[in-house]
């Protein structure tokens, strides 16, 4: 039975905008991850997944403020919030962040080895240069990377190699948890695969005890994660084992996202995919109740009144009124995508007809809508 590695409960973080307005980017999220596990965080742009990564790795900076939350790791507990001081060792040694676009931030005129020394010295100023480099070289050899990459300049390495080297560097201090934010978006598929396999290898060797992998790419997540958390509009709407979510999603948004995945598989040749109507809500004033309800074809009255309570346990749950009330019925995608003319909450048949007239009857008999946003 795997040990619980990290519990993060009730995380709230917001961006302070001008005029005192706040953008509630992470809204009451709770994350649980066991040792040896890769937890994937999926969602589209603006859902708050990168912000969640920043909060969990304790690297938030103004204008992003953590309003509240509790982190429990290795028996130690840390409250988060405005004005709370984070112990220095936590950052980098307990939780380490591999930020988005890290491979582009390497200094062009310095060898990789100088970055290694800088990182090690930031946490232990007395460490000798050779010592730091030896540790890095051993690490590289352990996962099968050529140690001479450390003596290269960034432009001499390919994108994939750079990203792998940076991943090693971000784990030099032996963090318990590594949070990787979109580590593969700029990489080719083959480099992506190499990085993913390297992360698995690092976990096997217990270089770190767990990984949180943040990306918008669902098939990638499914291939690497043990469990996946789906985020929408700052909230976690569903969590579960990767296989389970892929086969039996418990939330209409997850179902729609999965449907929009295009992979080289036989179904792709024949299926017809449609977009979710509308667009993600404003996080300054999100919709009442369930945040997905304005775009959801399965919407019921209660959805716009109360926020859904979670159904399931904290390793597998979803927040949706409809699935709560229909626990055994699989989610029908046609219903979610709302082929009953949901346009900005106005259910007006004449409006549908007018739009169809201008837009042209583009679709076949069973799917009469286009995105109207």
């Amino acid at each position, binding site marked *: 039975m795997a040990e619980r590695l990290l519990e993060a409960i009730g995380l709230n973080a917001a961006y*302070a905008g001008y005029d005192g307005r706040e953008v509630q980017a992470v809204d009451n999220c709770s994350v649980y991850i066991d040792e040896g596990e890769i937890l994937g965080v999926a969602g589209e742009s603006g859902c708050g997944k990168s912000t969640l990564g920043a909060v969990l790795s304790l690297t938030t900076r103004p204008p992003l403020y953590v309003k509240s939350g509790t982190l429990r790791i290795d028996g130690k507990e840390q409250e988060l919030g405005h004005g709370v001081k984070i112990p220095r060792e936590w950052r980098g040694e307990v939780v380490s962040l591999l930020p988005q676009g890290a491979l582009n931030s390497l200094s062009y005129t310095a060898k990789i080895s100088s970055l290694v020394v800088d990182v090690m010295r930031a946490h232990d100023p007395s460490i000798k240069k050779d010592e730091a480099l030896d540790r890095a070289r051993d690490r590289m050899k352990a996962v099968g990377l050529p140690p001479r990459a450390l003596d290269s300049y960034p432009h001499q390495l390919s994108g994939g190699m750079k990203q792998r080297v940076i991943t090693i560097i971000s784990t030099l201090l032996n963090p318990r948890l590594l949070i990787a934010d979109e580590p593969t*978006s700029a990489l080719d598929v083959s480099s992506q695969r190499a990085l993913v396999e390297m992360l698995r290898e690092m976990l096997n060797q217990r270089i770190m005890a767990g990984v949180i992998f943040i990306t918008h790419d669902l098939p990638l997540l499914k291939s690497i994660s043990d469990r996946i958390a789906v985020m929408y509009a700052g909230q976690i709407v569903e969590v579960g084992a990767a296989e389970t979510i892929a086969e039996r999603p418990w939330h209409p948004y997850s179902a729609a996202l999965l449907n929009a995945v295009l992979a080289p598989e036989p179904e792709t040749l024949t299926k017809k995919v449609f977009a979710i109507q509308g667009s993600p809500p404003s996080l*300054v*004033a999100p919709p009442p109740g369930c945040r997905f309800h304005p775009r959801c074809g399965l919407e019921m009255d209660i959805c716009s009144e109360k926020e859904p309570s*979670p159904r399931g346990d904290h390793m597998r749950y979803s927040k949706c009124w409809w699935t709560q009330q229909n626990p055994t019925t699989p989610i029908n995608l046609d219903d979610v995508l709302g082929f009953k003319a949901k346009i900005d909450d106005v259910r007006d048949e004449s409006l549908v007809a007018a739009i169809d007239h201008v837009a042209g009857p583009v679709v076949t008999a069973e799917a009469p809508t286009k995105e109207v946003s």
Partner: protein
Amino acid sequence: MRFSSRFYFALSLVLLVLVFVIVGPLIWSVDPNASIGGLFDPPQGVGSLILGTDNEGQSVIANLANGARTSLLVGLIAGIVATTIGLTIGLIAGYAGGLTEEILMGMTNIALAIPSIVVVILLSVALPQRNMVTLALIIGITAWPWTARAVRAQATSVRTREHIEVAKMSGAGFWSILGWDVLPYLLSYVVMAFVLQVSGAILTESSLSMLGLGPSNIVSIGMMLNWALAWGAVRVGAWWAFIPPTVLLSLIAFSLLLLQSSLDEVFNPRLRRGKKIKPVAIPAGQATRQEDYISPHSDGAAVGASTLLSAEAALGNDNAGAFADTPVPQERGEH
């Protein structure tokens, strides 16, 4: 556009100078050429002798106010001339590329290599009559090369952008693209270059006048300095004859340069330092992670945030983040 405090400070300095130049001659309305006192009379009172008299017994303050006006006008005209020439050459060279660019830049480099002060002096000496406008033109005609180079560099970088290709494929012609697709993207840069040109021209005019090559019929700050030097104000210790013009000249140059650097912050969002306390100024669309498309460079400076831009509701809904249900539920559902 968000203006920083630095901008407001610079703007107020510039306005201060302008007020002095416009209102000064009305307050101290004595004719600057009239002798109102003895040789180098020290300052007294608040009337036309507030800064004493110069070597010809003329009121220093009156000369200063009128002279500053001249200097500013020369600076403005020269600035317009130089910026126009530099912009045109740089724009065409940068966008057209190829042989056109080589020829235009070649000309520019030659013009740049010739010491402009020498040319200005020679031209000034050659002219029989030097009035304000001809002086301004001469200065403008010799000051454009650096603007041309800078504008060309900017235009070259705009040339490779995608919207130019889209414009070409829409059938737009050379001049249409130049005017509508390239120039608007350079305008902020050109404004800043213009401010620098004005500042530079004022200083050049002062140098010329100090050398005795200034406008022959009216007073300028440089002329005042010329007289002060030539007629021994320094030796005599008549500080009021040369310190005030120097201070005013420095103030003008400084305020223009400060204005220029604060404009840079306005036009280039990445330089903004923002406030230290919350709420922090966030320019529309930036840094709220609300981009609705994935930027491969992920530098956060992309625009998107159509949802934030269109959000009209006030921040009333406070419980959107609050401590509602925790996700450790009491009920156990089926898996």
